[in-house]
Every structure is written in structure tokens, then in C-alpha cells.
């Protein structure tokens, strides 16, 4: 469904991603793990069009990104998400001065989701009853966990085929992390393809079909979630055992 092929991405003279290739198949839940600064967020930003692969990088160029066989690298973010990709960015980035309801409604701004708005809203409230309790509150008054719920709900309002999540558990208290992770698994079980970036590999790799390990801007390992969790390098670097 999503194919990232040998992309090179950087900021000015600083290159962050080196020939990174990642693939996500229809219906899969795929995780990317890696230490801070490995380029995980850069990878998501490039997929959604906030950053572009380098135009000139040797004979291979900056690489290419395709979604359902169509090239999306180089398109504006709003054109990429309209094809059925929704994103929960790092830090949730809810619209602070808008109410919970308005944050959810704006999630359905893409043409494909507009007519299904009422049904999507009911589904999101079924998934996160807490959001319905807070429906008229400005998003800035929500707790960190509620903001993540709202960001996930906003993304679901777009009726996406592919959901990208950038560290949804970051900064949440441990008791909430399991809840968010369970929700992500349930979203995937409903048929939405999920591409998850997560530091909390204990949860993420166990529920993932496949995973990638990104270090220093390069994919150093890939495999089934359970295999990676048993890999000596992963166990030593990320679990300390």
C-alpha cells in the first residue's frame, strides 16, 4: 500500500535519512523503532509531504514514495492526505483554541470523509467516551492523554485507509500507554492499515506484524514483530537485556 524506496532526506547540509526503504502492506500494522535522533519523525514528515526527498542524490536521486502505486513525494501535504492517509503527529498537535467537537469535525475536512461525518463521530466517541464528556471544552484544557485521544479521533474522522502515528505514547503516564496501544491494535483490526513510530517497543513490536529498526538514519534491521523482539541487538539496545 505504502512504499518508501531509498529516500534521502535532510535539512540543508545535514542529511538525516540515508537510502531508507520501508513498505507497509494493506491491513498491516508496521512499527518503526529507533533511538532519539535516528530520523523516525523525519520519515513520517517526508511521507506526508512536510519534507521532500533530496532532488539530486547521486545517480539514484532522492528516492520515491508511492501510495497504492501512485507517486506522492513532491505533492503538497493536503493533496497527500486527501488520498486516504491520516496522521497523528508528534505531540498530538490538536488545535488549542478549538473545542473537542470542532477538532474532530475539522478532521473530516477531506472530501471523502465529509458525508460520513456523523457516523465517524459516533465511532470516535464509542472508542473514546472521554472525548464525548469533554465535547465543548477547548482542546488546550485537555490532559496529555486526552490530547492524544483527540488527535487519534481527529485522524479517524478522515476515514483513512492508512493511519500514521508518531510516538502516541510519548509523555503519557504508564497506565495510559497500554490503553492507547490497545486502541491502535483495535483500529488496525477494523481494517485500517497502521504505520506506527514508537519508542515503547515492548507494546509496539508485540502487536506489530512487522517492524523496522532505524539507527543513524538507516534501516539496520527489519522483520516480524515477534522476531525483532527476540533479536539480541534489539534486546540489548532497547530493552537492556
Amino acid at each position, binding site marked *: 500500500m505504502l512504499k518508501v524506496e531509498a529516500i534521502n532526506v535532510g535539512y540543508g547540509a545535514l542529511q538525516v535519512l540515508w537510502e531508507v526503504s520501508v513498505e507497509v502492506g494493506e491491513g498491516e500494522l508496521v512499527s518503526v523503532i529507533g533511538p532519539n535522533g535516528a530520523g523516525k519523525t523525519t520519515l513520517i514528515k517526508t511521507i506526508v509531504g512536510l519534507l521532500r526527498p533530496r532532488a539530486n542524490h547521486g545517480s539514484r536521486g532522492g528516492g520515491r514514495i508511492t501510495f497504492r502505486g501512485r507517486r506522492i513525494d513532491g505533492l503538497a501535504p493536503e493533496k497527500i*492526505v486527501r488520498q486516504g492517509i491520516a496522521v497523528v503527529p508528534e505531540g498530538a498537535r490538536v488545535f488549542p483554541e478549538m473545542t473537542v467537537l470542532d477538532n474532530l469535525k475539522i478532521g473530516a*475536512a477531506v472530501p471523502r470523509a465529509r458525508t460520513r461525518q456523523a457516523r465517524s463521530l459516533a465511532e470516535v466517541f464509542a472508542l473514546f467516551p472521554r472525548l464525548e464528556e469533554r465535547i465543548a471544552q477547548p482542546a488546550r484544557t485537555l490532559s496529555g492523554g486526552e490530547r492524544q485521544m483527540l488527535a487519534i479521533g481527529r485522524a479517524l474522522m478522515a476515514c483513512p485507509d492508512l493511519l500514521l502515528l508518531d510516538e502516541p505514547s510519548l509523555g503519557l503516564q504508564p497506565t495510559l500507554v497500554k490503553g492507547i496501544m490497545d486502541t491502535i491494535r483495535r483500529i488496525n483490526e477494523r481494517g485500517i492499515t497502521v504505520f506506527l513510530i514508537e519508542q515503547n517497543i515492548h507494546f509496539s513490536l508485540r502487536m506489530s506484524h512487522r517492524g523496522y529498526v532505524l539507527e543513524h538514519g538507516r534501516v539496520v534491521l527489519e522483520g516480524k514483530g515477534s522476531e525483532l523482539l527476540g533479536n539480541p541487538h534489539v534486546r540489548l539496545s532497547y530493552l537492556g537485556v
Partner: protein
Amino acid sequence: MTNDSVRSVEQLTVAGQTILNGILQGGVYAAAAVGLSLIFGVSGILNAAHGELVMLGAFGTYWLFKLYRVDPLLTLPISFALLFLLGYALQYLVLNRTLGSPLLVSLLVTFGISLILVNAALRVWSADYRMMTVPYLDRSLTLGPFIVPLSRLAAFAVGVGAVAGLYWLLQRTELGRMIRATAQDREMASLVGVNPRLVYALAFGLGSGISGVAGSLVAFYSPVEPNMGLTYTLFAFSVVVLGGMGYIPGVLWGGFALGIAQALTETYIETGLSLLVVFFLLYLVLQFMPAGILGKGRIE
């Protein structure tokens, strides 16, 4: 009644009439300023050509009335539509190229636009002052001891209505949600499928259209000329600062404050000093209440 009490009743009537005049004028100032507030709040552009949009709206109404005998009230939607298109085009074709540059760049570009508009207007319409007289708006209502000219009352009602309508649109419609989302986090708005460049153009169009309507209202009761824009740019900046930068309903209170201060100056001090008083008031607010008289503006 004694002479003294007659005099004090007269004084009270004059004071009341002055404040009433100020409020009526303030409604129009609010409409003339709300576009500036909207455009600044959404795209961060300080539009130095703002008053010229008011001037164009005023001329639109004047010529439609003078040449084609269009009822002045019917010119309001025409004024809105024409100025909306102009604003939309200015943002889409010119100002979108300044996105991401420092504030000074858009300020310089809009200053250039204002020079072009003023000089084009001088060239086409000359520097003459033009005044239109509308028979049915020329009458006055008498409310107890107070006199309310119909032209002023109509201008006030439409002006306040335009501000309220814009507020409703921002809070209650899909377009309003898109505009607010873009104002709060442009990148995130694009990630939910909103095209920020289109939203900026629509916001500029809306702000410009309302300014045009305000100009049409001004033409109901005061002369129209190409250089009138500068005053309205200054008034609009003052109103927005008084009401709080980026806080849309604040323009009503800012407009009333400006209108009343100006009317009081003209009645009790001297007509020529009204601008001085306005700027002194502005100075006081910036110094002591930088978030506006309601404290709801954005300070950066």
C-alpha cells in the same frame, strides 16, 4: 424651573447625544476594522492597504448611485462581492508569495499596493470630494431629546451586523473551522486536508469584502475621495489594538471606544484635535493594556 436646572438638563442632553453619535460612528469603525483583524489573525499579514479597500467600497457605492441610480442599500452586496474578488486575487496572486517571510515584507508589499490604489483612484476619479444625498436616508428619527439620522442608524446596524455575521461564520461553519484551524497551526491544518493558501485567499477576500461594505456605509453620510483610505487604515489599526489583536469581537468595543472618544473631543475640546486624542488613547492602551481594553488580545 430655575435657569440652572434648565442648563444642566441641556448639558446632559448634549452629553447623551455626543455619546450616541460616538456609538453610531463606532459601529462603522468596527466594520471598517474587522477585516484587518481577521487577516492579521489568520495569515499574520498587517495590511497597510486596508483603508484603500474602504475607499474603493465608498467609491463603488457613490458611482453606482450617481451613474446608475442603484439604491445605496442595494450597493452593499455589490461592494462586498467586488472587494471580495479583489482581496482574494491580491492574496492568491501577490501576498501568498510572501508567506514565510518576515512581517516587514508583507507590510512593504501592502504599502506598495496602497500607493497603487490611491494613485489609480486619483488618476481616474480626481482628488475631488464627492457627496451623495439619498432622500430617504436624509431624514432623522427623534428619540426623546435625541436625534438619530437615518443614514447613521442604517450604517451602524449594517456595520454591527457585518461584524456579527463574520463571527458567526468563523464559529459555526465549515469554512470558519478551516480558517481558525489554519490560524492556529498552519502545518497541522494542511495535514487534515486544508489548503492554507486557499484559506488565506478566502480570509483576505472576506476581510476585504467587509471593508468594502464599511466604505459603502461611510459614503451614506460623508464625502468620498481617493485619499480617505489612510485615515481608515489608522482608525482600523487603532480599533484592533483597542479591542485586542486577533480577537474578532473586540473590534466592536474598540470601535465604540474610538467613536465615543472622537465624539467627546469634537464636542468638548476641538474638532481638529480628535486624531490627537485617538492616538493618545492608543498610546495609553499599548502602554498599560497591551492585550486591549478587554484583555483578550494576543500579545507577541
